[in-house]
């Protein structure tokens, strides 16, 4: 079975599983307890925080451990909105964000905030000039993702960061869930105030994640309680999950160093075979994220192709896992101005460093055969 759906979720590293089980066996104390069992847990939590900070090149107090990408995005967006609403009630985002960003913004609209959903061009790109033009006196937050989860489009976050810097009153949040470990994005001096990372997209465990919140960024908490994570995120800490997350951060960054070319080579191989397949059109812009290729096969129902490919042992997806239950049309592709023939027949192939060239070749062959069979049936 060849898994090519790594943007939906990834297989945890064995080392990640090992550190999870070891920590949950040996360090079961509650870090808030003052006895030695608790203190040992607290020290380990602190070390994990230090390491995470080191890996991201930020300060320890800027790391908030969360239960995942959705919580990170909600904490950032609702957190800024509710903490700074006296200053202004305007938010800027794009129309191709992940539902955890879009829906959080829609929820805030219900509370009286106004949201600008910036359009994207046919490649799925947000125009930094449009971001700047949308800024008003009332703007408190810009939330733009780094790598789009359906197309792999890399947004110009560096440029947007430079713009954001000129407006010290507003905050800039980046959903880095798909980009981390694949497409570098330095945080220091970037103009980025908040950045979301999710464990299970980087071979870590589900239910783990972190939010970078630049020192001095005031957030209203999503959950109230014991005041853990500097009161931004109450609830007994998931120590084993956290340690395993830091392990995943370290390992994926190492792989990013070592495996960059391997990933690019696989993508290139995949691209050229897809490009040659006449029923297929490639939706992803060339030269963007090294691990995501989105294609359309007009005239074919995506579920049918997915099913046929899985019978051959290859696992890919329609758009994003989160919205797989919705109708066929991809809102992201539609926003890029693609006709319904394309936006309703999209498939996503997403790679990890652990895939092999021969798996890509096998996939290309299987896709070719599948399309051939169906074409014959359909005459």
């Amino acid at each position: 079975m060849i898994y090519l759906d790594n943007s939906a979720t990834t297989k945890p590293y064995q080392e990640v599983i090992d550190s999870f089980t070891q920590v949950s066996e040996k360090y079961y104390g509650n870090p808030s307890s003052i006895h030695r069992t608790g203190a040992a847990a607290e020290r380990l939590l602190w070390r994990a925080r230090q390491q995470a900070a080191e890996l991201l090149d930020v300060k320890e107090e800027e790391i908030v451990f969360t239960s995942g990408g959705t919580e990170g995005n909600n904490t950032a967006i609702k957190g800024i909105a509710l903490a700074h609403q006296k200053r202004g009630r305007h938010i800027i985002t794009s129309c191709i964000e992940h539902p955890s960003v879009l829906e959080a913004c829609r929820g805030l609209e219900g509370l009286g905030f106004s949201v600008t959903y910036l359009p994207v061009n046919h490649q799925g790109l947000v125009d930094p000039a449009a971001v700047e033009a949308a800024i008003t006196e009332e703007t408190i937050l810009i939330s733009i993702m780094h790598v789009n989860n359906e197309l792999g489009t890399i947004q110009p976050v560096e440029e947007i960061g430079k713009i954001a810097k000129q407006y010290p009153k507003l905050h800039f949040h980046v959903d880095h869930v798909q980009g981390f470990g694949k497409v570098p994005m330095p945080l220091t001096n970037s103009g980025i105030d908040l950045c979301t990372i999710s464990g299970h997209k980087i071979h870590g465990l589900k239910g783990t994640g972190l939010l970078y919140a630049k020192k001095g960024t005031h957030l209203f908490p999503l959950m109230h309680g014991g005041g853990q994570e500097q009161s931004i995120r109450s609830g007994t800490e998931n120590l084993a999950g956290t340690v395993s997350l830091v392990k995943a951060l370290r390992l994926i960054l190492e792989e990013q160093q070592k495996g960059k070319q391997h990933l690019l080579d696989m993508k290139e191989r995949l691209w050229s075979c897809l490009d040659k397949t006449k029923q297929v059109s490639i939706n992803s812009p060339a030269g963007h994220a090294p691990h995501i290729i989105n294609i359309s096969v007009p005239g074919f129902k995506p579920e049918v192709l997915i099913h046929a490919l899985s019978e051959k042992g290859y696992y890919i997806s329609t758009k994003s896992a989160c919205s797989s239950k919705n109708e066929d049309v991809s809102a992201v592709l539609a926003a890029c101005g693609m006709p319904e023939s394309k936006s309703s027949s999209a498939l996503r192939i997403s790679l990890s460093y652990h895939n092999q060239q021969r798996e890509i070749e096998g996939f290309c062959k299987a896709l070719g055969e599948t399309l051939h069979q169906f074409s014959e049936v359909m005459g």
Partner: protein
Amino acid sequence: MEPIYLDHAATTPVHPEVTKAMLPVLQEVFGNPSSVHHFGRKARQIIDEARRIIAGSIHANEKEIVFTSGGTEADNLAVVGTAMANRDRGMHVITTQIEHHATLHAAEYLEKQGFEITYLPVGSEGKVSVEELESALRDDTVLVSIMAVNNETGMVQPIKEMGKVLKGHPAYFHTDAVQAYGLMDINVDDWNVDLLTASSHKINGPKAGGFLYMREGVQVSALQYGGQQERKRRPGTENVSGIKGFQRAVELAVENRSERQQKYADFKQTFLQKLRQENVQFVVNGIETETVPAIVNISFPGTNVEALLTNFDLSGVAASSGSACTAGSIEPSHVLSAMFGKGDDRTINSIRFSFGLANTKDNVEEAAGRVASIVNRLAE
């Protein structure tokens, strides 16, 4: 000296069976439950099964279980979520002075949103009175949130009686059952509760797991927005292995409930017996016969919490003052303050001991011996 853990109300060791159940899921069932392919379906099956078993453990329907990242999140979803979704029906909420901070701070947030909150008091025995609840109820009360078992004293609250009182009232009834779940036989219909919170790490499951039971038809506004997971009440990719571990912990708790109850009751008696034998001066806070067997809260006259805890810890005994400690400083417990009044000695000389998986009769007796000699020394 062998460390002895008597702080199971703070958190519990993960049961080896739980880790064993999680491992294959971590290693093999890594799909995203929302994915339509094989990997996704396998993961979905695990969640479905866990939901069925966990729903069964409180006699609920599986549709009524919302998995969360823990007790704190479930309490917040219950308290903030229902109040906000039903604010057009009324802006009055009833809770108690002895709730966990997750509920109390959520209630304080509601106050800032314009809600009026009644914090029911407790008497010196630490029990919320059904009559007080009855007289606090108003036409515009939308939510009543009262814990099933207090985490500091172990006092069981009269949830079933309160459920009866609330039967004729439209307010939703939420109970934080974090300290009750696993040890008590819970039937949500019997208790007549609409919402119920449980947490995995208190019953030997993995940390960062929990659920909110929501009776069918209860309206809540979600704390987080995103995908379709948990029918939008709690979006975010599901923690599949954590949910599997929680399920296993629940199965073990249900299977061994009466055995555990007896065992912990026995531990408690052994512990208290030893203190008496050693002529320790102490008073049990609350009504001993109305506490869960796993928790005992003891006041040691003439001592002080910080000195006690430090010395216990040096002797290898892990216990707690019951209240959450921030950065090593120990605030007088809000629960004991509610019971005895602010400034009462018992608020600064009481310790919570809580029993569980890490205990045997022998190590409980050994711990009691160490506690006795420390108290006798400090109380001189």
